Protein backbone atom coordinates (compact mmCIF):
# COMPACT_ATOMS: atom_id res chain seq x y z
CA UNK A 1 0.00 0.00 0.00
CA UNK A 2 1.26 3.39 -0.95
CA UNK A 3 0.45 5.31 2.22
CA UNK A 4 1.77 8.80 2.49
CA UNK A 5 2.31 8.52 6.23
CA UNK A 6 5.11 6.15 5.50
CA UNK A 7 6.85 8.95 3.65
CA UNK A 8 8.78 11.78 5.16
CA UNK A 9 6.36 14.54 4.23
CA UNK A 10 2.77 15.24 4.92
CA UNK A 11 0.96 15.54 1.59
CA UNK A 12 -1.17 18.34 2.98
CA UNK A 13 1.92 20.43 3.71
CA UNK A 14 2.99 20.02 0.14
CA UNK A 15 -0.41 21.02 -1.25
CA UNK A 16 -0.47 24.04 0.99
CA UNK A 17 2.98 25.17 -0.05
CA UNK A 18 2.35 24.89 -3.77
CA UNK A 19 2.47 28.06 -5.77
CA UNK A 20 -0.66 27.10 -7.67
CA UNK A 21 -4.28 26.52 -6.84
CA UNK A 22 -5.28 22.93 -6.13
CA UNK A 23 -8.84 21.87 -5.50
CA UNK A 24 -10.58 18.50 -5.68
CA UNK A 25 -14.32 18.13 -6.17
CA UNK A 26 -16.43 14.97 -6.09
CA UNK A 27 -19.01 13.77 -8.63
CA UNK A 28 -21.56 16.24 -7.25
CA UNK A 29 -18.95 19.00 -7.54
CA UNK A 30 -18.61 19.23 -3.72
CA UNK A 31 -15.22 20.54 -2.60
CA UNK A 32 -12.98 17.88 -1.00
CA UNK A 33 -9.67 19.72 -1.08
CA UNK A 34 -8.89 23.44 -1.03
CA UNK A 35 -5.27 24.44 -0.71
CA UNK A 36 -3.75 27.57 0.83
CA UNK A 37 -3.11 29.20 -2.54
CA UNK A 38 -6.82 29.25 -3.45
CA UNK A 39 -7.78 30.20 0.11
CA UNK A 40 -5.45 33.16 -0.14
CA UNK A 41 -6.50 34.37 -3.58
CA UNK A 42 -10.23 33.83 -3.06
CA UNK A 43 -10.18 35.02 0.56
CA UNK A 44 -12.22 31.94 1.45
CA UNK A 45 -10.96 29.64 4.20
CA UNK A 46 -10.65 25.92 3.67
CA UNK A 47 -13.22 25.27 6.39
CA UNK A 48 -15.73 27.50 4.58
CA UNK A 49 -15.17 25.75 1.28
CA UNK A 50 -15.12 22.06 2.20
CA UNK A 51 -18.22 20.02 1.41
CA UNK A 52 -19.93 22.84 -0.41
CA UNK A 53 -20.73 22.86 -4.09
CA UNK A 54 -17.89 24.47 -5.98
CA UNK A 55 -19.98 27.20 -7.62
CA UNK A 56 -21.62 28.10 -4.29
CA UNK A 57 -18.36 28.56 -2.42
CA UNK A 58 -17.72 31.95 -4.02
CA UNK A 59 -19.82 35.01 -3.38
CA UNK A 60 -19.35 36.12 -6.97
CA UNK A 61 -20.36 34.01 -9.94
CA UNK A 62 -18.11 31.48 -11.63
CA UNK A 63 -17.97 31.75 -15.44
CA UNK A 64 -20.43 29.51 -17.33
CA UNK A 65 -17.58 28.18 -19.47
CA UNK A 66 -15.82 26.92 -16.33
CA UNK A 67 -18.98 25.20 -15.10
CA UNK A 68 -19.52 23.58 -18.51
CA UNK A 69 -15.92 22.38 -18.50
CA UNK A 70 -16.28 20.96 -14.99
CA UNK A 71 -19.51 19.22 -15.93
CA UNK A 72 -17.91 17.79 -19.05
CA UNK A 73 -14.97 16.42 -17.09
CA UNK A 74 -17.32 14.86 -14.54
CA UNK A 75 -19.50 13.29 -17.24
CA UNK A 76 -17.00 12.23 -19.86
CA UNK A 77 -13.96 11.69 -17.64
CA UNK A 78 -11.71 13.51 -20.11
CA UNK A 79 -9.28 16.27 -19.07
CA UNK A 80 -10.08 19.85 -20.01
CA UNK A 81 -7.94 22.97 -20.31
CA UNK A 82 -9.16 26.56 -20.05
CA UNK A 83 -6.69 29.02 -21.52
CA UNK A 84 -6.13 32.59 -20.37
CA UNK A 85 -6.33 33.59 -23.99
CA UNK A 86 -10.00 32.67 -24.22
CA UNK A 87 -11.23 33.04 -20.66
CA UNK A 88 -9.13 35.58 -18.78
CA UNK A 89 -10.70 35.31 -15.32
CA UNK A 90 -13.13 32.40 -15.01
CA UNK A 91 -12.94 32.21 -11.20
CA UNK A 92 -13.26 35.12 -8.74
CA UNK A 93 -9.63 35.01 -7.61
CA UNK A 94 -7.66 38.15 -6.82
CA UNK A 95 -4.13 39.36 -6.71
CA UNK A 96 -3.13 41.51 -3.78
CA UNK A 97 -5.51 40.23 -1.14
CA UNK A 98 -3.38 41.82 1.56
CA UNK A 99 -4.88 44.90 3.20
CA UNK A 100 -4.23 48.28 1.57
CA UNK A 101 -3.40 46.68 -1.76
CA UNK A 102 -5.76 47.21 -4.63
CA UNK A 103 -7.59 44.08 -5.62
CA UNK A 104 -7.43 43.02 -9.22
CA UNK A 105 -9.02 39.92 -10.62
CA UNK A 106 -6.35 37.39 -11.51
CA UNK A 107 -5.82 36.07 -15.03
CA UNK A 108 -5.90 32.30 -14.86
CA UNK A 109 -4.95 29.18 -16.77
CA UNK A 110 -6.94 26.18 -15.55
CA UNK A 111 -6.64 22.44 -15.97
CA UNK A 112 -9.38 20.02 -14.88
CA UNK A 113 -8.45 16.33 -14.74
CA UNK A 114 -10.58 13.34 -13.75
CA UNK A 115 -9.18 11.39 -10.79
CA UNK A 116 -10.45 8.56 -8.65
CA UNK A 117 -10.59 8.63 -4.88
CA UNK A 118 -9.38 5.71 -2.80
CA UNK A 119 -13.05 4.88 -2.29
CA UNK A 120 -13.37 4.57 -6.05
CA UNK A 121 -15.45 7.72 -6.44
CA UNK A 122 -15.13 9.80 -9.58
CA UNK A 123 -13.57 13.14 -8.68
CA UNK A 124 -11.98 16.05 -10.48
CA UNK A 125 -8.71 17.77 -9.78
CA UNK A 126 -8.74 21.49 -10.58
CA UNK A 127 -5.37 23.22 -10.98
CA UNK A 128 -5.16 26.97 -11.36
CA UNK A 129 -2.09 28.99 -12.28
CA UNK A 130 -1.69 32.74 -12.25
CA UNK A 131 -1.02 33.99 -15.76
CA UNK A 132 -1.16 37.68 -14.91
CA UNK A 133 2.49 38.25 -15.71
CA UNK A 134 2.30 36.88 -19.23
CA UNK A 135 -0.90 38.83 -19.82
CA UNK A 136 0.66 42.04 -18.55
CA UNK A 137 3.51 41.66 -20.97
CA UNK A 138 1.09 41.01 -23.79
CA UNK A 139 -1.11 43.95 -22.81
CA UNK A 140 1.80 46.33 -22.71
CA UNK A 141 3.03 45.17 -26.06
CA UNK A 142 -0.41 45.37 -27.47
CA UNK A 143 -1.40 48.74 -26.17
CA UNK A 144 1.82 50.23 -27.46
CA UNK A 145 1.98 48.71 -30.85
CA UNK A 146 -1.74 48.55 -31.42
CA UNK A 147 -2.34 52.21 -30.83
CA UNK A 148 0.70 53.21 -32.83
CA UNK A 149 -0.12 50.86 -35.64
CA UNK A 150 -3.78 51.75 -35.67
CA UNK A 151 -3.07 55.46 -35.84
CA UNK A 152 -0.48 54.96 -38.49
CA UNK A 153 -2.62 52.78 -40.70
CA UNK A 154 -6.22 53.93 -40.23
CA UNK A 155 -8.01 56.77 -41.91
CA UNK A 156 -9.35 58.92 -39.09
CA UNK A 157 -12.60 59.94 -40.84
CA UNK A 158 -13.74 56.56 -42.15
CA UNK A 159 -11.90 54.11 -39.89
CA UNK A 160 -10.88 52.06 -42.94
CA UNK A 161 -7.22 51.69 -43.99
CA UNK A 162 -5.40 54.82 -44.99
CA UNK A 163 -3.25 55.58 -48.02
CA UNK A 164 -0.04 54.73 -46.21
CA UNK A 165 -1.33 51.28 -45.29
CA UNK A 166 -2.60 50.76 -48.82
CA UNK A 167 0.76 51.62 -50.39
CA UNK A 168 2.57 49.08 -48.25
CA UNK A 169 -0.15 46.45 -48.61
CA UNK A 170 -0.43 46.89 -52.39
CA UNK A 171 3.28 46.32 -52.86
CA UNK A 172 3.15 43.12 -50.80
CA UNK A 173 -0.01 41.86 -52.47
CA UNK A 174 1.46 42.34 -55.95
CA UNK A 175 4.70 40.62 -54.96
CA UNK A 176 2.74 37.72 -53.47
CA UNK A 177 0.53 37.38 -56.56
CA UNK A 178 3.59 37.37 -58.83
CA UNK A 179 5.32 34.75 -56.73
CA UNK A 180 2.30 32.47 -56.32
CA UNK A 181 1.02 33.22 -59.83
CA UNK A 182 -2.47 33.90 -58.58
CA UNK A 183 -4.79 36.67 -59.79
CA UNK A 184 -5.09 39.96 -57.96
CA UNK A 185 -7.98 42.39 -58.36
CA UNK A 186 -7.77 46.14 -57.80
CA UNK A 187 -10.98 48.16 -57.61
CA UNK A 188 -10.72 51.96 -57.84
CA UNK A 189 -13.88 53.62 -56.56
CA UNK A 190 -14.87 57.27 -56.84
CA UNK A 191 -18.02 59.03 -55.60
CA UNK A 192 -19.77 60.66 -58.57
CA UNK A 193 -20.09 64.48 -58.62
CA UNK A 194 -18.71 64.72 -55.12
CA UNK A 195 -17.52 68.32 -55.54
CA UNK A 196 -21.05 69.47 -56.33
CA UNK A 197 -22.31 67.48 -53.35
CA UNK A 198 -19.89 69.28 -51.06
CA UNK A 199 -20.76 72.64 -52.53
CA UNK A 200 -24.48 72.07 -52.26
CA UNK A 201 -24.81 70.15 -48.99
CA UNK A 202 -21.74 71.47 -47.16
CA UNK A 203 -18.56 69.84 -45.86
CA UNK A 204 -20.10 68.12 -42.86
CA UNK A 205 -22.61 66.35 -45.07
CA UNK A 206 -19.73 65.61 -47.47
CA UNK A 207 -17.72 63.96 -44.71
CA UNK A 208 -20.75 61.97 -43.71
CA UNK A 209 -21.27 60.78 -47.29
CA UNK A 210 -17.65 59.62 -47.44
CA UNK A 211 -18.12 57.74 -44.17
CA UNK A 212 -21.26 56.02 -45.36
CA UNK A 213 -19.77 55.01 -48.68
CA UNK A 214 -16.66 53.70 -46.88
CA UNK A 215 -18.74 51.57 -44.56
CA UNK A 216 -20.94 50.30 -47.41
CA UNK A 217 -17.79 49.21 -49.26
CA UNK A 218 -16.29 47.66 -46.15
CA UNK A 219 -19.46 45.70 -45.41
CA UNK A 220 -19.02 43.85 -48.69
CA UNK A 221 -15.72 42.29 -47.55
CA UNK A 222 -15.69 39.03 -45.65
CA UNK A 223 -12.26 37.49 -46.27
CA UNK A 224 -9.26 38.32 -44.10
CA UNK A 225 -7.15 38.79 -47.22
CA UNK A 226 -9.20 41.67 -48.60
CA UNK A 227 -8.75 45.34 -47.78
CA UNK A 228 -10.50 48.60 -48.55
CA UNK A 229 -8.60 51.87 -48.15
CA UNK A 230 -9.29 55.55 -48.59
CA UNK A 231 -7.07 56.47 -51.51
CA UNK A 232 -7.62 60.19 -51.29
CA UNK A 233 -10.52 62.68 -51.03
CA UNK A 234 -13.59 60.80 -52.27
CA UNK A 235 -11.60 57.98 -53.83
CA UNK A 236 -11.30 54.44 -52.44
CA UNK A 237 -9.36 51.38 -53.44
CA UNK A 238 -9.94 47.67 -52.76
CA UNK A 239 -7.35 44.91 -53.04
CA UNK A 240 -8.59 41.33 -53.33
CA UNK A 241 -6.52 38.26 -54.24
CA UNK A 242 -7.69 34.96 -55.78
CA UNK A 243 -10.82 36.15 -57.59
CA UNK A 244 -11.60 34.73 -61.02
CA UNK A 245 -12.30 37.48 -63.59
CA UNK A 246 -16.06 36.79 -63.58
CA UNK A 247 -16.34 36.90 -59.81
CA UNK A 248 -14.31 40.13 -59.68
CA UNK A 249 -16.68 41.75 -62.19
CA UNK A 250 -19.69 40.60 -60.18
CA UNK A 251 -18.08 41.96 -57.04
CA UNK A 252 -17.55 45.37 -58.65
CA UNK A 253 -21.25 45.40 -59.44
CA UNK A 254 -22.00 44.46 -55.82
CA UNK A 255 -19.98 47.46 -54.65
CA UNK A 256 -21.85 49.76 -57.01
CA UNK A 257 -25.26 48.53 -55.92
CA UNK A 258 -24.32 48.59 -52.21
CA UNK A 259 -23.70 52.33 -52.51
CA UNK A 260 -26.71 52.84 -54.77
CA UNK A 261 -28.89 51.11 -52.17
CA UNK A 262 -27.84 53.65 -49.54
CA UNK A 263 -30.22 55.91 -51.48
CA UNK A 264 -28.59 59.11 -50.23
CA UNK A 265 -30.14 62.12 -51.99
CA UNK A 266 -27.81 64.15 -54.25
CA UNK A 267 -29.89 66.46 -56.39
CA UNK A 268 -26.83 67.80 -58.19
CA UNK A 269 -26.12 64.37 -59.65
CA UNK A 270 -28.07 63.83 -62.87
CA UNK A 271 -29.85 61.66 -63.76
CA UNK A 272 -29.73 59.60 -60.54
CA UNK A 273 -30.46 62.30 -57.96
CA UNK A 274 -28.62 60.26 -55.37
CA UNK A 275 -25.10 59.33 -54.36
CA UNK A 276 -23.54 56.84 -56.78
CA UNK A 277 -20.05 55.52 -57.41
CA UNK A 278 -18.04 54.64 -60.48
CA UNK A 279 -15.81 51.58 -60.25
CA UNK A 280 -12.70 50.80 -62.28
CA UNK A 281 -11.50 47.23 -62.03
CA UNK A 282 -8.35 45.54 -63.18
CA UNK A 283 -7.81 41.87 -62.45
CA UNK A 284 -5.13 39.42 -63.52
CA UNK A 285 -1.90 37.66 -62.64
CA UNK A 286 0.71 40.40 -62.51
CA UNK A 287 4.00 39.88 -64.31
CA UNK A 288 7.12 42.03 -64.57
CA UNK A 289 6.11 45.66 -64.75
CA UNK A 290 2.36 45.23 -65.05
CA UNK A 291 0.65 48.02 -63.22
CA UNK A 292 -2.72 46.94 -61.93
CA UNK A 293 -3.30 50.23 -60.18
CA UNK A 294 -2.83 52.35 -63.30
CA UNK A 295 -5.10 50.04 -65.26
CA UNK A 296 -7.79 50.20 -62.59
CA UNK A 297 -7.48 53.97 -62.62
CA UNK A 298 -7.83 54.04 -66.42
CA UNK A 299 -10.93 51.82 -66.07
CA UNK A 300 -12.36 54.24 -63.53
CA UNK A 301 -11.78 57.10 -65.96
CA UNK A 302 -13.70 55.21 -68.65
CA UNK A 303 -16.55 54.52 -66.23
CA UNK A 304 -16.78 58.26 -65.59
CA UNK A 305 -16.74 59.04 -69.31
CA UNK A 306 -19.42 56.49 -70.04
CA UNK A 307 -21.90 58.16 -67.71
CA UNK A 308 -20.94 57.22 -64.12
CA UNK A 309 -22.78 54.87 -61.71
CA UNK A 310 -21.19 51.92 -63.50
CA UNK A 311 -18.29 49.47 -63.41
CA UNK A 312 -15.68 49.07 -66.10
CA UNK A 313 -13.21 46.22 -66.14
CA UNK A 314 -9.95 46.39 -68.09
CA UNK A 315 -7.77 43.32 -68.68
CA UNK A 316 -4.29 43.50 -67.27
CA UNK A 317 -2.68 42.48 -70.54
CA UNK A 318 -3.92 44.27 -73.63
CA UNK A 319 -1.05 43.60 -75.99
CA UNK A 320 -3.01 41.14 -78.10
CA UNK A 321 -5.88 43.55 -78.57
CA UNK A 322 -3.47 46.27 -79.60
CA UNK A 323 -1.96 43.94 -82.17
CA UNK A 324 -5.38 43.17 -83.53
CA UNK A 325 -6.23 46.81 -83.98
Amino acid at each position, binding site marked *: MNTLSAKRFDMEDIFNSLNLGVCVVDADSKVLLWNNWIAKHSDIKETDALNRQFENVFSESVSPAFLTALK*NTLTHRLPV*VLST*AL*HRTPLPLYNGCEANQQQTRMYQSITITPIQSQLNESCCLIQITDSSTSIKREKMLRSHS*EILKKEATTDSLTDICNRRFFDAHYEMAVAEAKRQKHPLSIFMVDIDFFKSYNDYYGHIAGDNAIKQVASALKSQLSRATDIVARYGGEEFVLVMPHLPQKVAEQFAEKLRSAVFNLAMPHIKSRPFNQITISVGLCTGIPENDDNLLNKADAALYQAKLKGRNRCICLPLCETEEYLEQ
Partner: protein
Amino acid sequence: MSNLSELHLDALAEIFSIGAGRAALSLSEIVGDEVHISVPSVQVINVEDINATTLSLNSGRFGAVSQYFSGPFNAEAVLLFTEEQALKIVSDMMGSQMSLEELAEFEHEAMCELGNIILNACLSAMADILHFTLESSLPNYRVASADEILHRLKENSNQPYVMVLHIDLAIEKRHTTGNLVFLLSSTSLTNLVIHINQFLGSIS
Protein backbone atom coordinates in the same frame (compact mmCIF):
# COMPACT_ATOMS: atom_id res chain seq x y z
CA MET B 1 -6.14 -3.33 -45.46
CA SER B 2 -8.69 -2.22 -42.96
CA ASN B 3 -11.77 -4.36 -42.59
CA LEU B 4 -14.27 -1.57 -42.36
CA SER B 5 -17.48 -1.70 -44.38
CA GLU B 6 -19.51 1.21 -45.72
CA LEU B 7 -21.81 0.82 -42.75
CA HIS B 8 -18.91 1.00 -40.27
CA LEU B 9 -17.71 4.21 -41.87
CA ASP B 10 -21.24 5.58 -41.88
CA ALA B 11 -21.51 4.86 -38.15
CA LEU B 12 -18.18 6.59 -37.52
CA ALA B 13 -19.23 9.57 -39.64
CA GLU B 14 -22.44 9.90 -37.62
CA ILE B 15 -20.54 9.60 -34.33
CA PHE B 16 -18.06 12.28 -35.34
CA SER B 17 -20.71 14.59 -36.69
CA ILE B 18 -22.37 14.42 -33.28
CA GLY B 19 -18.99 15.13 -31.68
CA ALA B 20 -18.49 18.06 -34.04
CA GLY B 21 -21.90 19.43 -33.10
CA ARG B 22 -21.05 19.25 -29.42
CA ALA B 23 -17.71 20.94 -30.00
CA ALA B 24 -19.43 23.71 -31.96
CA LEU B 25 -21.83 24.25 -29.08
CA SER B 26 -18.98 24.56 -26.55
CA LEU B 27 -17.01 26.89 -28.80
CA SER B 28 -20.02 29.09 -29.46
CA GLU B 29 -20.42 29.53 -25.72
CA ILE B 30 -16.82 30.70 -25.49
CA VAL B 31 -16.72 33.04 -28.48
CA GLY B 32 -20.30 34.25 -28.01
CA ASP B 33 -21.05 33.80 -31.67
CA GLU B 34 -22.31 31.16 -34.02
CA VAL B 35 -19.86 28.35 -34.62
CA HIS B 36 -20.31 25.63 -37.16
CA ILE B 37 -18.24 22.45 -37.31
CA SER B 38 -18.84 19.56 -39.65
CA VAL B 39 -16.98 16.40 -40.56
CA PRO B 40 -17.48 15.91 -44.29
CA SER B 41 -15.52 12.68 -44.53
CA VAL B 42 -14.02 9.81 -42.57
CA GLN B 43 -11.38 7.53 -44.03
CA VAL B 44 -9.43 4.65 -42.55
CA ILE B 45 -6.18 4.00 -44.36
CA ASN B 46 -2.91 2.20 -44.01
CA VAL B 47 -0.16 4.46 -42.74
CA GLU B 48 1.97 3.59 -45.79
CA ASP B 49 -0.70 5.01 -48.07
CA ILE B 50 -0.74 8.30 -46.32
CA ASN B 51 0.88 11.22 -48.07
CA ALA B 52 0.73 14.96 -48.18
CA THR B 53 -2.37 14.92 -50.41
CA THR B 54 -4.47 12.70 -48.12
CA LEU B 55 -3.97 15.22 -45.38
CA SER B 56 -3.90 18.26 -47.68
CA LEU B 57 -0.52 19.05 -46.16
CA ASN B 58 0.64 20.94 -49.20
CA SER B 59 2.93 23.53 -47.78
CA GLY B 60 4.13 25.51 -44.89
CA ARG B 61 3.97 24.83 -41.23
CA PHE B 62 1.23 23.22 -39.22
CA GLY B 63 -0.13 23.57 -35.75
CA ALA B 64 -0.84 20.15 -34.24
CA VAL B 65 -2.78 19.49 -31.05
CA SER B 66 -2.42 15.94 -29.81
CA GLN B 67 -3.89 13.84 -27.02
CA TYR B 68 -3.29 10.18 -26.19
CA PHE B 69 -6.45 8.22 -25.57
CA SER B 70 -6.68 4.82 -23.94
CA GLY B 71 -9.46 2.38 -23.19
CA PRO B 72 -10.93 -0.41 -25.30
CA PHE B 73 -8.75 1.01 -28.00
CA ASN B 74 -5.69 3.22 -27.76
CA ALA B 75 -5.01 6.06 -30.10
CA GLU B 76 -2.98 9.15 -30.56
CA ALA B 77 -5.35 11.79 -31.87
CA VAL B 78 -3.83 14.75 -33.69
CA LEU B 79 -5.73 17.79 -34.88
CA LEU B 80 -3.96 19.62 -37.69
CA PHE B 81 -4.40 23.15 -38.98
CA THR B 82 -1.95 25.19 -41.02
CA GLU B 83 -0.12 27.59 -38.77
CA GLU B 84 -1.66 30.52 -40.59
CA GLN B 85 -5.16 29.12 -40.06
CA ALA B 86 -4.38 28.36 -36.44
CA LEU B 87 -3.45 31.99 -35.86
CA LYS B 88 -6.59 33.22 -37.59
CA ILE B 89 -8.77 30.91 -35.50
CA VAL B 90 -7.10 32.16 -32.33
CA SER B 91 -7.55 35.77 -33.37
CA ASP B 92 -11.22 35.18 -34.28
CA MET B 93 -11.82 33.42 -30.99
CA MET B 94 -10.12 36.15 -29.00
CA GLY B 95 -11.97 38.75 -31.00
CA SER B 96 -9.21 41.32 -30.90
CA GLN B 97 -7.02 43.09 -33.33
CA MET B 98 -3.56 41.81 -32.59
CA SER B 99 -0.55 41.46 -34.77
CA LEU B 100 0.58 37.97 -35.63
CA GLU B 101 3.58 38.22 -33.32
CA GLU B 102 1.38 39.13 -30.41
CA LEU B 103 -1.09 36.40 -31.24
CA ALA B 104 1.71 33.88 -31.35
CA GLU B 105 2.10 34.34 -27.60
CA PHE B 106 -1.37 32.96 -27.12
CA GLU B 107 -1.34 30.51 -29.96
CA HIS B 108 0.00 27.68 -27.85
CA GLU B 109 -2.51 27.91 -25.03
CA ALA B 110 -5.53 28.82 -27.14
CA MET B 111 -4.86 26.08 -29.70
CA CYS B 112 -4.48 23.55 -26.88
CA GLU B 113 -7.91 24.55 -25.67
CA LEU B 114 -9.50 24.53 -29.12
CA GLY B 115 -7.99 21.11 -29.88
CA ASN B 116 -9.00 19.82 -26.47
CA ILE B 117 -12.62 20.85 -27.10
CA ILE B 118 -12.79 19.22 -30.53
CA LEU B 119 -10.89 16.06 -29.54
CA ASN B 120 -12.85 15.54 -26.31
CA ALA B 121 -16.17 16.15 -28.08
CA CYS B 122 -15.38 13.58 -30.79
CA LEU B 123 -14.07 11.00 -28.34
CA SER B 124 -16.86 11.49 -25.82
CA ALA B 125 -19.47 11.13 -28.58
CA MET B 126 -17.78 7.88 -29.57
CA ALA B 127 -17.66 6.66 -25.97
CA ASP B 128 -21.33 7.56 -25.39
CA ILE B 129 -22.64 5.94 -28.53
CA LEU B 130 -20.47 2.83 -28.52
CA HIS B 131 -20.82 2.47 -24.74
CA PHE B 132 -17.29 2.45 -23.44
CA THR B 133 -15.05 4.75 -21.44
CA LEU B 134 -11.82 6.33 -22.52
CA GLU B 135 -9.06 8.04 -20.63
CA SER B 136 -6.94 10.78 -22.06
CA SER B 137 -3.75 12.73 -21.54
CA LEU B 138 -3.75 16.51 -21.50
CA PRO B 139 -3.42 18.19 -24.89
CA ASN B 140 -0.06 19.11 -26.31
CA TYR B 141 0.57 21.66 -29.06
CA ARG B 142 3.49 21.85 -31.42
CA VAL B 143 4.24 23.54 -34.68
CA ALA B 144 5.86 21.38 -37.32
CA SER B 145 6.41 21.17 -41.07
CA ALA B 146 4.44 18.80 -43.29
CA ASP B 147 7.52 16.59 -43.66
CA GLU B 148 8.02 16.34 -39.92
CA ILE B 149 4.39 15.40 -39.43
CA LEU B 150 4.44 12.70 -42.14
CA HIS B 151 7.70 11.36 -40.82
CA ARG B 152 6.29 11.08 -37.34
CA LEU B 153 3.18 9.31 -38.60
CA LYS B 154 5.21 6.78 -40.53
CA GLU B 155 8.02 6.06 -38.11
CA ASN B 156 5.60 4.56 -35.62
CA SER B 157 5.32 1.03 -36.99
CA ASN B 158 3.17 -0.36 -34.20
CA GLN B 159 0.35 1.96 -35.25
CA PRO B 160 -0.14 0.96 -38.87
CA TYR B 161 -3.62 2.45 -39.28
CA VAL B 162 -4.79 6.01 -39.46
CA MET B 163 -8.33 7.29 -39.30
CA VAL B 164 -8.54 10.66 -41.00
CA LEU B 165 -11.43 13.08 -40.50
CA HIS B 166 -11.66 16.27 -42.49
CA ILE B 167 -12.91 19.07 -40.29
CA ASP B 168 -14.73 22.18 -41.49
CA LEU B 169 -14.77 24.91 -38.90
CA ALA B 170 -16.57 28.22 -39.31
CA ILE B 171 -16.46 30.92 -36.67
CA GLU B 172 -18.61 33.89 -37.60
CA LYS B 173 -17.96 34.28 -41.29
CA ARG B 174 -14.56 32.68 -41.53
CA HIS B 175 -14.20 29.18 -42.88
CA THR B 176 -11.26 27.02 -41.92
CA THR B 177 -10.48 23.43 -42.69
CA GLY B 178 -8.30 21.03 -40.80
CA ASN B 179 -7.74 17.34 -40.29
CA LEU B 180 -8.19 15.11 -37.31
CA VAL B 181 -5.93 12.09 -37.49
CA PHE B 182 -6.12 9.05 -35.22
CA LEU B 183 -3.14 6.71 -35.14
CA LEU B 184 -4.29 3.19 -34.35
CA SER B 185 -2.60 -0.15 -33.80
CA SER B 186 -4.14 -3.21 -35.50
CA THR B 187 -5.52 -4.39 -32.15
CA SER B 188 -7.07 -1.03 -31.54
CA LEU B 189 -8.68 -0.98 -34.95
CA THR B 190 -10.01 -4.51 -34.42
CA ASN B 191 -11.44 -3.51 -31.04
CA LEU B 192 -13.03 -0.45 -32.53
CA VAL B 193 -14.67 -2.57 -35.23
CA ILE B 194 -15.96 -4.99 -32.56
CA HIS B 195 -17.59 -2.11 -30.71
CA ILE B 196 -19.14 -0.71 -33.87
CA ASN B 197 -20.49 -4.19 -34.71
CA GLN B 198 -22.07 -4.47 -31.28
CA PHE B 199 -23.65 -1.09 -31.74
CA LEU B 200 -24.93 -1.92 -35.23
CA GLY B 201 -26.19 -5.27 -33.98
CA SER B 202 -28.30 -3.51 -31.39
CA ILE B 203 -30.18 -1.48 -33.98
CA SER B 204 -30.53 -3.71 -37.02
